[in-house]
């Protein structure tokens, strides 16, 4: 009796598996058929996005950003490739925020879905798994979420970058400081000892040296640090009057708060990540005023076709207002920089195809190296050799009287910088 029941259940289980496999296979086949049945004039952009796992938030926004770009391009007559009009479509899979299946999924995109160009997954961890596949099949892959530079130093020929690399994160603030022509600038660099922040700090040091500014103190604190009193006293003793650094939200807030409480007279404060969030002002009040932060993109940047004309470069894509409106219409939320950089990557990829005038990867890669455009996200131009982004500048925001204002670069600015930060310096 028992064994009969066991046979019945095991048969049932096997049946369920077979049925599910058949359904899955059928749906899969049907979907691939739909993809294949489209007319010749479609450019397929392939990507894996992180719909689950630790990059879920970023992945979701990135996907929305890509979809906005695709819709904008198709609404505006598609792409002109060698005299023919093409529409653009996005083919994507979920990589679950893990590099494990990334090579497999990218192979599938290239070999089975026959995509024309690739976008990289979010983060450098996943990008490093995708780049060898792109290289193997000679497909251009545009990175939108990997701020690490290291992937571009490994000799991957077809990888190009559409956002500012981590080493350039604080460069804009350093440039801004230099433009103040203040002979008495003494910088303290206090940053979180994590992969991202250390890379940023390394780039900042190079930028400070290049600008001829004075770095008097440097300290890397461990992740999770909340007490900065002794570090701040050391930096004060070294005579520092400018603070650069930070890492994530909590430590960025704590560092700023304690610098304020300990009466550190600072002419300028540049903190990573934390000040870009509205909570920063709510937690710190007046101490937040004067604090600056770099951002890949900010709501309200003033890049526009007119600016492009002044700069003498071509404008491409939606304007900022258009972009935000489209995003709201399609998804009902607000875009952040994760979405914006993904949108920009699609625009850059499509523009490179248009400039190449063909779907041949080598032609696209060569054209990408020549491209110089302005988008709502900023200016995009890569180093023709390495594929590193060289034109996109971080925008700098500053809290001014409780409002977050974009102060740099001039082309995107809403307000002029307040330097020295009066409430910190003259108290």
């Amino acid at each position, binding site marked *: 009796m028992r064994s009969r029941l*066991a046979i019945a259940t095991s048969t049932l289980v096997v049946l369920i598996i077979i049925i599910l496999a058949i359904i899955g296979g059928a749906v899969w086949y049907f979907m691939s058929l739909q993809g294949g049945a489209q007319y010749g004039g479609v450019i397929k952009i392939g990507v894996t996005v992180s719909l689950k796992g630790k990059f879920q938030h970023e992945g979701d926004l990135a996907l929305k950003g890509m979809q906005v770009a695709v819709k904008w391009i198709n609404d505006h007559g598609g792409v002109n490739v060698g005299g023919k009009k093409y529409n653009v479509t996005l083919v994507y899979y*979920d990589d679950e925020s893990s590099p494990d299946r990334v090579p*497999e999924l990218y192979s*599938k995109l290239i*070999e089975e879905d026959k995509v024309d160009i690739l976008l990289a997954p979010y983060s450098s961890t996943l990008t490093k798994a995708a780049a*060898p596949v792109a290289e*193997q099949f000679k497909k251009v892959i545009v990175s939108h979420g990997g701020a690490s530079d290291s992937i571009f130093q490994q000799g991957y020929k077809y990888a190009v970058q559409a956002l500012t690399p981590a080493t350039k994160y604080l460069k804009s603030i350093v440039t801004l400081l230099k433009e103040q022509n203040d002979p008495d600038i003494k910088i303290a660099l206090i940053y979180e000892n994590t992969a991202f922040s250390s890379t940023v700090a390394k780039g900042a040091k190079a930028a400070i040296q290049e600008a001829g500014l004075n770095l008097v103190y440097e300290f890397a604190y461990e992740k999770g640090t909340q007490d900065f009193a002794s570090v701040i006293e050391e930096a004060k003793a070294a005579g520092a009057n400018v603070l650069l650094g930070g890492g994530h939200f909590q430590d960025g807030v704590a560092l700023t708060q304690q610098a304020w409480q300990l009466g550190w007279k600072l002419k300028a404060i540049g903190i990573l990540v934390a000040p870009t969030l509205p909570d920063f002002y709510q937690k710190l009040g007046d101490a937040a005023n004067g604090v600056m932060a770099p951002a890949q993109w900010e709501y309200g940047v003033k890049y526009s076709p007119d600016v492009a004309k002044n700069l003498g470069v071509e404008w491409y894509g939606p304007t900022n207002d258009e972009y935000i409106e489209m995003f709201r219409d399609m998804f009902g939320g607000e875009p952040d920089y994760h979405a914006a950089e993904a949108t920009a990557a699609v625009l850059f990829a499509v523009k490179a195809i248009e400039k190449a005038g063909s779907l041949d990867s080598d032609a696209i890669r060569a054209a990408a190296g020549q491209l110089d455009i302005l988008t709502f996200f900023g200016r995009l131009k890569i180093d023709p050799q390495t594929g590193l982004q060289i034109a996109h500048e971080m925008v700098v925001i500053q809290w001014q009287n409780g409002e977050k204002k974009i102060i740099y670069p001039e082309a995107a600015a809403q307000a002029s910088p307040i330097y020295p930060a009066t409430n910190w310096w003259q108290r």
Partner: protein
Amino acid sequence: MDIDEFFKRPTPLFILILLIVILIAKLLRLETTDYLITIMFFIGIAMALNIIMGFAGYVSFGHTVFLGISGYVFALLVYYNRDFANLMNMYSGIPIFFIALLAGGVSALVAFLVGIPVLKLKGAFFAIATIGLDFAALYIIKAFIPILNPEFFGAQIILPAYALAYKDNVFVAMYITFALIIIANYLIRRSRFGMGLLAISEDEDAAEALGVPTTKYKLISFALSAFFTGMLGAVFGLNSGGVDENLFNLAHTIDMIVMIVIGGIGTVMGPLVGSIIYFILYDTLLVTYPEFNLVILGFIVAVIVLFAPRGVVGILRGKQFMGKKLRDIIE
């Protein structure tokens, strides 16, 4: 063993067919190279863990640590030694296999040394100790790698493009590694050593009393299991363009355990069938229903575990087929 007897047994036949099918799929390009590398990796890690978990009954929950250790050893060897990297592009990738052997050896050594105290623990305590090992190794590497070379992005090592110039070479290395692991599994299961391990999993004290050198056997099986897991971590790390913290992710161990359990614990055929079913199911669902894949998969796994606690193959072993007890022929 004479050849007739060999073919009367379904397990070696199944292994042979599986190896041939993968080779044909590669040669006729029925599946992408990366798909085949990935499926071999997942079947391989289940089979590697099977040696300690399936046979000896010790659930090594932190087993993913050996993916990490060997992955890092391999990546560092290749990163710092250009000769290795150049070699990897020659001789159809067979050198990759030998470097992976070396990297796997480091894992085996770690497993052996750690196994001496840890294998004295049983059940949940052993499982927790191995999780501890995983986290310890992860934190050591997170602290050590950035000091070793500030050029690395945190604990992440990205290999140069030339190290991974030909995916076909990676396929060859993975194929040899994979074949080695499943054949070793079968040979161990058939050996006196394997019988000893099964005895340990039934009742360790009784096995000891009957003359099975339990401590020695457990240590060897733990080290062997770590060795094979490590080799896979090395080759798979290479295929991912480099290594990072993800290799230490406990999700890998969960995959391994689920694959073994749904197939049937204590056999060779079980984890083999289980991992093939699990991988193909997982992959198909991920591609077709990215929103619900984990829900559907979880449901299926729950059904299998509820109604077939001994796994898909485990159930078959209780049956008779054409007058033969399947228990006697399915290993």
